[in-house]
């Protein structure tokens, strides 16, 4: 996976050779033009699904303001 040489933008990781060979076969004829592009795609998909959603924290005053506004629009009772 050392197709890009720009040290700032890319890094090299190691995966088992048989796995790499399987992936190479699998991406033939697909839109993926390299092993790296496939692995990048899969990792992006995985990492985006594992990030936590931060809780919104409102002060009492802010929460009441928002509720009043939404009530005025008829969206809250």
């Amino acid at each position, binding site marked *: 996976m050392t197709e890009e040489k720009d040290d700032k933008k890319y890094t090299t990781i190691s995966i088992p050779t048989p796995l790499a060979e399987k992936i190479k076969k699998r991406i033939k004829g697909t*839109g993926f033009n390299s092993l790296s592009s496939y692995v990048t*795609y*899969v990792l*992006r*998909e995985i*990492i*985006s699904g594992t*990030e*936590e*959603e*931060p809780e*919104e924290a*409102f002060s009492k005053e802010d*929460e009441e303001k*928002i509720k009043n*506004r*939404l009530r*005025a*629009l*008829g*969206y*809250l009772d």
Partner: protein
Amino acid sequence: MPKPHGGKLIDRHVKKVPSGITDLPKFEINTNLAEDIENIAKGVFSPLEGFLCKNDLEKVLQEKRLEDDTPWTIPILLDFDKKEIKDIKEGDSVILTNTETGLLSILDVEEIYTFDKKTLAQSVYGTQDIDHPGVASVYNMKQLLLGGKVTLLESKTREFDEYNLAPKETRFLFKEKGWKEIVAFQTRNPPHIGHEYVQKTALTFVDGIFINPIIGKKKKGDFTDKVILASYETLMKYYYPKERVVMSILRTSMKYAGPREAIHHAIIRKNFGCTHFIVGRDHAGVGNYYDPYDAHAIFQEFPDLGITPVFFKSFFRCTKCDAVVNEKICPHEEKYHINFSGKKIRELLLNGKIPPENMMRKEVSETILKFDKPFVE
């Protein structure tokens, strides 16, 4: 509910104007830029905290991502003339104002840099043709770009602000309503029957629909913002279950960047808390610059977008099916199809005539015709 894009909902609005800002250099900017600042400050453009610096811009143009790998397709840029900012250097802070919106904001200038207009146009719009409105706006930009974080200090109440919910408000609302899955629909026109079918088909599979008209600068002959909002109010009143629909406006300019803009629009709706985004035919397209379904294909490049696109082909009425259908579900020849022509509906309304009820709801048509001037002059 999806997390905000980039993981955090940005809030760069301060309630109290800090002292000591009166000595800062002050610049009046145009309304589009002022609206960009408001969108940054309220988290609509999360994770952006300001105007793009050079590394981010280059990555957006080349890879459709920010420097930290977050998907981002439309550069949010602040341009200035060399002469205007000859005394400004990196590290300075400046005041940015706009009379129309009452904007008062601070920009912390992180970087001042040049850019190539042709590269920008080609990357974002896929063309360098000056007839493309987005390309024309790039060619009209000034020579220098300023990157850096913005802070919103003040903005005045504007027309339609009662409909202008911020992402933190819509997220709060969706939670209060108990909606887990929300589909967003973007619009720039009053709804005809085809729009209603798209919306209701999508709504069938989720908890609620978020109708999000784009409000702002329009071309001559377009429906006015007032008409768009009133017509949707009418449709919602008579034909939507009240507990399943929310409408709020989005103040931003259309770029007509087709597929790239479809991703941008999806990101914005993710920040509002939506899980799904409706992408129709030729989304954000103009003329013949994009294939009608380029805006569908581009989503394959973003497994980490965090909002699910819902692709629709155009709905039409099939006289043989005797129903509103689309090409995926209708087996009949084109001669049986009647398209919902926005142009035809517009022509009828322009002449004070009510369009057929199988094209537009009567109540919606009547709402539009109540306006003396439903079109931009």
